[in-house]
């Protein structure tokens, strides 16, 4: 590799270099010495004598721009030269996140904003103190700029690199002075993303790209029915393929280890396996829908109860009921899951794109029986996460495989079929609403009953309904949590991903039932929700709500508050022969203080495109306990020709930062399908809305 001393060059090689440093150290090589020259001011910032600053990025980069935005926060508060930064992904340490080191819940900026600023401000004050001591002047006579300390009386300058070793010896100031918003130089601006160059030249090291010397490749054929197990298997045909090294059972599947990925994937197909399908072989999409419909007619567990819904419904001027359904969804990140693992007698190294390093470490500890301090997690770039890479399953499996191959690094690779058929899915949901309207057509009561499998933190199944922001005096939300053995987990925007569609569509129904404008209807019910109102009004204004459209085009609107942010969208669609064309989506977002406006806009766009798929294209179907979808032909995400023009408008704010990665996904399906209703008078209550449903 040619060594390039520019910042881009450093960034480009840092992931690979970090990996080789670790490996070099592990093998007793001398490369690790190169690092000892760095003075470590704290867990996030270290500085080399040549004035390069190395920032530890404690969050996983899966596209959401954390390498850049975290660097901006640290560099701004510590006055670090933006052009002399390199970044690394550190191993698991409490300082990088407790109880878990990980990237989820659109929390990076929300939870790291204050501590990162403090950390950086501490480093800056230590550098100032070191310079003041060196010059024999008071600290008030030292200022900082672009990785330099400057004596304000003499204009003498030293680089951070020249005094970092002194600074590192000082006590860490407990209460450093933070910059005021007016002093920010990088925060609130959009420097180029630090990962663009490597991702444009094919040089970023994703998990899939990591290569260890002598590495073998594995693929696993898993029981097609969840919770099923291997009964017997015949590996004769698989072993006959040149390049196959080992075939063995790991309980829920059979692993093939081979000299390359292709051989592993071929041999996996050649396995003859008899399965013990276990108790879940009866699961099917129609069966689950019918069972959940029956459940929805019985009382559930109350999760929100305001006023008296029953009385209010009984005396309402008008009553409206509707049932909404959403299927299981796969995350389908572009990079299929994988992890490279080396297990020895005493330690286990895992090279992986993970969203939650702590979970990966725990999975490896469990699979090896090692203590957590014998596990090293090396984070690589993630080819998408969307919640999928927070799972422990793929790490646990890969470690089990490597344990079998002790002393040899093994990369376990998932095929796209594996990915779609063995995901931890966004749970399906069956939700029944009853609303009572007053004589003016506004809701006096809403009763929602949610049937959806349980997972994660309490309340995620009903978020988007139980915490809706509309002024409805009598409101009850109940839930049923049938555990049907289909693995479910967090999917970009979690419960909001389906519940915002349900809630915002049902509200549209109420407006339509009394011939009211859906924007006005929402405005009235959100009169006491200033941030909701602000995004709603901004989206409506920018989209020209109420102004004439070309013939055949119609608008729909939706609004939500999740992850500490507020999001409204107006979609513009036409429907021809049942085929929906989304021409434009205008989105307004309030996510508090913005660190990098360009990255916020990217994330909002990204979330909208991600939300279009489940609105109009794909869902998981089950039959005989198996996922029917196999690849992108039967689970076809949004493509470029289906992507509308997207406008993102950010509400200026001085409030604490909100999340952005999951802010826009919830509002896209209801905005689009409310527009489809406007176009066709057909109310879509079951996702996805396929052409045949609208023809």
């Amino acid at each position, binding site marked *: 590799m040619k060594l390039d001393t520019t910042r881009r060059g450093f960034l480009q090689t840092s992931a690979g270099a970090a990996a080789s440093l670790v490996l070099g150290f592990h093998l007793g090589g001398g490369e690790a010495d190169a690092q000892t020259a760095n003075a470590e001011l704290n867990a996030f910032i270290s500085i080399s004598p040549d004035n390069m600053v190395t920032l530890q990025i404690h969050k996983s980069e899966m596209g959401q721009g954390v390498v850049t935005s975290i660097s901006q926060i640290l560099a701004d508060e510590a006055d670090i030269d933006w052009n002399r930064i390199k970044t690394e992904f550190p191993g698991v340490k409490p300082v990088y996140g407790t109880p878990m080191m990980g990237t989820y819940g659109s929390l990076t900026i929300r939870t790291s904003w204050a501590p990162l600023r403090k950390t950086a401000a501490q480093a800056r004050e230590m550098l100032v103190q070191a310079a003041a001591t060196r010059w024999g002047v008071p600290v008030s006579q030292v200022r900082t700029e672009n990785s330099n300390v400057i004596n304000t009386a003499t204009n003498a300058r030293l680089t951070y690199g020249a005094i970092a070793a002194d600074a590192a010896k000082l006590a860490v100031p407990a209460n450093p002075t933070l910059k005021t918003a007016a002093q920010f130089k990088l925060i609130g601006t959009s420097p180029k993303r630090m990962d663009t160059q490597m991702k444009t030249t094919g040089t970023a090291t994703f998990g899939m790209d990591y290569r260890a010397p002598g590495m073998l490749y594995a693929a696993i054929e898993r029981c097609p029915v969840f919770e099923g197990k291997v009964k017997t298997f015949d590996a004769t045909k698989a072993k006959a393929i040149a390049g196959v090294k080992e075939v063995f059972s790991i309980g829920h599947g059979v692993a093939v280890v081979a000299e390359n990925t292709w051989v592993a994937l071929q041999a996996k197909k050649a396995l003859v396996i008899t399965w013990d399908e276990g108790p879940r072989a009866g699961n099917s999409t129609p069966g689950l829908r019918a069972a959940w419909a029956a459940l929805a007619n019985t009382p559930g567990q109350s999760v929100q109860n305001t006023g008296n819904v029953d009385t209010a419904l009984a005396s309402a001027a008008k009553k409206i009921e509707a049932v909404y359904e959403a299927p299981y969804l796969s995350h389908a990140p572009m990079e299929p899951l994988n992890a490279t693992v080396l297990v020895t007698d005493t330690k286990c190294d895992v090279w992986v794109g993970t969203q939650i390093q702590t979970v990966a470490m725990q999975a490896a500890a469990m699979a090896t029986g090692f203590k957590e301090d014998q596990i090293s997690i090396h984070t690589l770039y993630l080819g998408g996460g969307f919640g999928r890479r927070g799972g422990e399953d793929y790490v646990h499996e890969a470690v089990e495989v490597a344990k079998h191959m002790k002393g040899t690094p093994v990369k376990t690779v998932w095929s796209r079929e594996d990915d779609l058929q063995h995901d931890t899915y966004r749970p399906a949901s069956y939700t029944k609403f009853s609303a009572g309207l007053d004589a003016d057509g506004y809701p006096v009561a809403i009763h929602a009953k949610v049937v959806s499998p349980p997972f994660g933190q309490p309340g995620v199944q009903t978020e988007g309904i139980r915490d809706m922001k509309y002024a409805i005096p009598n409101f009850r939300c109940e839930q049923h949590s049938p555990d049907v053995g289909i693995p479910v987990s967090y999917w970009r925007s979690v419960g909001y991903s389906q519940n915002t569609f349900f809630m915002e569509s049902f509200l549209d129904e109420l407006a339509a039932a009394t011939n009211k404008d859906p924007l006005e209807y929402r405005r009235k019910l959100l009169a006491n929700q200033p941030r909701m109102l602000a995004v709603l009004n901004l989206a409506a204004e920018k989209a020209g709500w109420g102004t004439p459209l070309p013939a055949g085009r119609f608008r729909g609107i939706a609004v939500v508050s999740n992850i500490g942010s507020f999001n409204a969208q107006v979609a513009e669609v036409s429907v021809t022969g049942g085929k929906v064309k989304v021409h434009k989506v205008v989105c307004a977002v309030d996510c508090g203080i913005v660190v990098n406006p360009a990255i916020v806009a990217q994330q909002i766009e990204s*979330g909208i495109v991600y939300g279009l798929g489940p609105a109009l294209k794909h869902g998981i179907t089950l039959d005989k306990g198996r996922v029917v979808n196999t690849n992108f032909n039967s689970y076809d995400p949004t493509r470029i020709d289906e992507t509308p023009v997207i406008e993102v408008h950010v509400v200026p704010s001085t409030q604490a930062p909100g999340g952005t990665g999951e802010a826009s996904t919830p509002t896209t399906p209801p905005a689009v399908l409310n527009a489809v209703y406007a176009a066709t008078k057909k109310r879509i209550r079951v996702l996805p809305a396929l052409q045949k449903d609208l023809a």
Partner: protein
Amino acid sequence: MPAITFNLNGRSQSVNVPNDMPLLWVLRDTLGMTGTKFGCGMALCGACTVHVNGTPIRSCSTTAASVAGKNVTTIEGLGGAHSVQKAWMEMDVPQCGYCQSGQIMTAAALVQKTAKPSDADIDEAMRGNLCRCGTYPSIRKAIHRAAQLQQGGRA
């Protein structure tokens, strides 16, 4: 196994692999050129796109034997200063980045063939390349920009 020889990014390359081994895995696993990505293995996502004799193809569904004697260009061979790469950098297109090698290779072939692609041309050429991060609006802008740069357009 007789060696298969082809031209890879301007240099002659011989590999001892089975005839039916997909070019994708020859590049990634045999040659260690990991810029070309695996996304589906069935010509459905475009992540593995490379050029064979200047035409974008899906390397996951192209056998090693079929490229014998041909010119194969991968993302590594584009050089980093190609008008499409320049435009991509200007617009900060990538998010997770995993699909981008494929997107760039398809886009490079498009602007090669169609000097000034329309939005419809872009849809047509690019609809086989999935991006789960939804970078499509940026890709569209960057392709228009690349066309400009290619014609010596203002920087």
